[in-house]
C-alpha cells in the first residue's frame, strides 16, 4: 500500500505532442482516484506514465517512498487493468490470474492457491478452468481484476475499466468495483471519459484538459462548484446552463432577468460574466406566468421536453433567443409553448468571468481592491 506523488511531470511523444504538461498530483494511500476528461486530454498518457509504459520526459513519479520515474514497469509494483482486459486467450482463467506468479517462477501449487484465493472473492471460483473466450464481458473484466489483485501490487491502475461493458452491466460492475476497492483499501487510479462514472466511483476527481489538471476535488466539489466553464460544461449528465450576462446595479442581468448574485462577491459594475446554473437547480415560480420582464426570474416559453425517466429536461426559449434548460419532476411536465418563470435555488447560481471563464469566488482580496478602484 502506498500513495502516489507526481511532481512537474511531462510526457512528450516523439512527434512533439506534450500529452502531459508539467503536472502535479498527489493520490493518498488507499484513495480511489479518477482521471476524467475528454479524449486527447492526456489522462491515459498520465496513467501509462505512472505505470512506466510511457517514459516521463520531465518530472518525477513517486509511489510510496520510492522514486519510480526511471524504473521498468515490472519493477514498479503497479498492476494495471486494460480497457480490453488483455487476457491471454490461450490460458485458462486460473493460468491468467496466476500468470504474474508464474513469471516470478513461484511453484505450481502457490500459483493455483493464489488463483483460487483471488477468484473466490470475485465469484469466479467456478470458472477457473474456462478460457477467456468462453466468458461474458463482465466475467472477463473480473478475471482481469483478479490478475491485477493477485500480484499484490502497491497501486492499481484501471484504464477505462467499464467502457467495454454494455450499459446495464456497467452499472452492476460500477457498484462491484467500488465495493472491491473499499474492501481491498488499495490505492486505485482510474481513467474515464464518463463524468457519471467518475462522480459515482471516485473519492477525488482530477478533471484534465490539454495535459494539465483543470480542477481537483471531491465529486461534490467538482459537481457543485466547477472552477471554470470547461469543467462546468463537462460535468453533469445534463449540461449546465452557461448564460452570457452583465453586472448592472449589483445584479446579474441575464436572458432578460435580473438575478441576485452569489453572496460575498465583489462585482465590477458593467463587466461581462457567464452565469452558470445546473438544470437540476432551477425552480419554476408557480403562478408567475404573466409577470413582466426584468423581474427576478428568467421568462421563457417551453420549446423542448425530453423525458429522462423520473424527471424531464425542459428547454425554454427566452425573448432574446437564449435557451435555458431545467429539470422538472415528471408529474409536473409542462406542455410545449407554456410560458414559465424560473429562478435558481438559493446559493446555486455560479458566476464565471466573461473573458477567462474562471469561477468568481468570494475569498480573494485583490478582487475587492479592483472593485474599490472602479468605484473611486
Amino acid at each position: 500500500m502506498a500513495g502516489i506523488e507526481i511532481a512537474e511531470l511531462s510526457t512528450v511523444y516523439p512527434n512533439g505532442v506534450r500529452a502531459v504538461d508539467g503536472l502535479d498530483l498527489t493520490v493518498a494511500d488507499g484513495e480511489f482516484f479518477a482521471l476524467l476528461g475528454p479524449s486527447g486530454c492526456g489522462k491515459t498518457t498520465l496513467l501509462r506514465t505512472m505505470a512506466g509504459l510511457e517514459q516521463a520526459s520531465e518530472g518525477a513519479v513517486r509511489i510510496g517512498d520510492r522514486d519510480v520515474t526511471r524504473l521498468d514497469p515490472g519493477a514498479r509494483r503497479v498492476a494495471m487493468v486494460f480497457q480490453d482486459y488483455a487476457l491471454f486467450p490461450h490460458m485458462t482463467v486460473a493460468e491468467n490470474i496466476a500468470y504474474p506468479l508464474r513469471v516470478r517462477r513461484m511453484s505450481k501449487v502457490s500459483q493455483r492457491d493464489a488463483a483460487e484465493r483471488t477468484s473466490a472473492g470475485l465469484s469466479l471460483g467456478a470458472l477457473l478452468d474456462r478460457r477467456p473466450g468462453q466468458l461474458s464481458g463482465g466475467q472477463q473484466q473480473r478475471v482481469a481484476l483478479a490478475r491485477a489483485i493477485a500480484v499484490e501490487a502497491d497501486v492499481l491502475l484501471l484504464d477505462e475499466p467499464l467502457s467495454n461493458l454494455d450499459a446495464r452491466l456497467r452499472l452492476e460492475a460500477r457498484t462491484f468495483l467500488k465495493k472491491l476497492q473499499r474492501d481491498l483499501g488499495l490505492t486505485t487510479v482510474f481513467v474515464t471519459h464518463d463524468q457519471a462514472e467518475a462522480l459515482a466511483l471516485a473519492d477525488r476527481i482530477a478533471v484534465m484538459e490539454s495535459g494539465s489538471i483543470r480542477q481537483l476535488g471531491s465529486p461534490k466539489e467538482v459537481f457543485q462548484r466547477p472552477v471554470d466553464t470547461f469543467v462546468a460544461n463537462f460535468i453533469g449528465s445534463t449540461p449546465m446552463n452557461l448564460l452570457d450576462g452583465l453586472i448592472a446595479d449589483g445584479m446579474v442581468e441575464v436572458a432578460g432577468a435580473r438575478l441576485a448574485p452569489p453572496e460575498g462577491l465583489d462585482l465590477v459594475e458593467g463587466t461581462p460574466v457567464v452565469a452558470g446554473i445546473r438544470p437540476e437547480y432551477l425552480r419554476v415560480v408557480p403562478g408567475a406566468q404573466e409577470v413582466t420582464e426584468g423581474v427576478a426570474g428568467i421568462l421563457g416559453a417551453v420549446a423542448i421536453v425530453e423525458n429522462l425517466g423520473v424527471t424531464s429536461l425542459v428547454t425554454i426559449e427566452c425573448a432574446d433567443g437564449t435557451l435555458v434548460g431545467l429539470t422538472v419532476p415528471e408529474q409536473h411536465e409542462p406542455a410545449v409553448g407554456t410560458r414559465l418563470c424560473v429562478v435558481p435555488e438559493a446559493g446555486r447560481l455560479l458566476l464565471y468571468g466573461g473573458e477567462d471563464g474562471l469561477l468568481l469566488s468570494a475569498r480573494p482580496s485583490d478582487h475587492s481592491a479592483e472593485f474599490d478602484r472602479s468605484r473611486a
Partner: protein
Amino acid sequence: MPAAEPEVVLEREVPAPQRNRRAGSRAAATDAAGLGRARAVGFVAPALVLIGVFLVFPALWTIYIGVTDYQLTGAAAAAPKVVGLANFLSALNDGLFHNAVWLTVLFVLGSAVIGQNLLGFALAWLLRGVRPWLRRTVESMVLLSWILPSTVVAYLWFAVLDRNGGTLNALLGTPGTAWLVTYPMASLIVFNTWRGTAFSMLLYTSALAAVPPSQLETARLVGASGWQTVRDVVFPHIRGHVLTNTLLISLWTANDFTPFLLTAGGPNHASETLPVFIYRQALEGGQLGYASAVSLLLLLGNLLVALVYLRLLRRRG
C-alpha cells in the same frame, strides 16, 4: 402448416415484371456478373491454356520420361524405351542420390527451418521498438538481399568468400581459406539464410502487429523477461504463422537451385543438393529418364512435408 405462410405472402409481393425476368434468365446467366457460362469460359481460357502448356504438360511429361530410359544423346535419345520403375529402383540404390537427399535435409533444416525462421523472427521482434529510420534501413537491406537476381548475388558472394582477397578472409584474418571448397555446405547454409530471411521477417512483422499491445504491456507490467514474453504471449498468437512460414520456406529451400551457382555441387558432390543433383544427372550425365524419376521423388518429398504441416495446422485449429 404455419411455416409456409410467410413464403406465400412474399411470393405475392414480388412485382410481376421482376418475376418474369427471374424466370426467363434462369437458363442463361446465374452468376453475379451476368456473363453466362460460355462467355465465362472464354475469359478463363487463356489462363487455363498457359497453365496447361507451361505447368501441367511439363509435369506429366516428366512423369512419362521418368519411366523411360530417355537420354540426352545416343540411341536412347532417338528411341526411348519404357523401363517401368527401373529408374526409381536404381535411385534407391544410388549412393550419390542418398548423399543428395541428406544434403538437402541439412540445407533445409540449417538455412530455412532454423536460419531464416529464427533470424527473420529476431529481426521482426527487435525492429518493433527502434526508431523508424533505423527500422527502414535494416528492412531495406534485408529486402535487397531477397530481391537481387541470383546471379548477381552469387557473384557478390564469390567476392566475399574468395580464397585470395575475399572480404571474409580480410575481416577474419584468415588469408588463403577457400570457404566454398573447405566448408561448402556451411557456406551454402549461411548464404541461403542471408538470401531468404526477408520473407520470414516480413511475415513475422505482420504477425506481430496482430498481437494485442495490451497483452504485451501486461507482460511488461508483471515483469516478464523478453524470452518469457515471447514464449507465453507472442508465440501462442503467431503459432499458425510460424507453421505457414516454415512450410513455405522449407519447400522453397528444398527446390532452390542457387547453390549450383556458388559451388556447382562440388567439391566432389559435397554440396550437391537434390535440384543440383537432378540438373547434373540430366545435363552433365545425359540421363534424362533417371533425372526425371528423381524429380518426381523430390516432388513426392515436398508433398509429404506439406501434408505433415497441414496436419499440424489442422490440429491447432
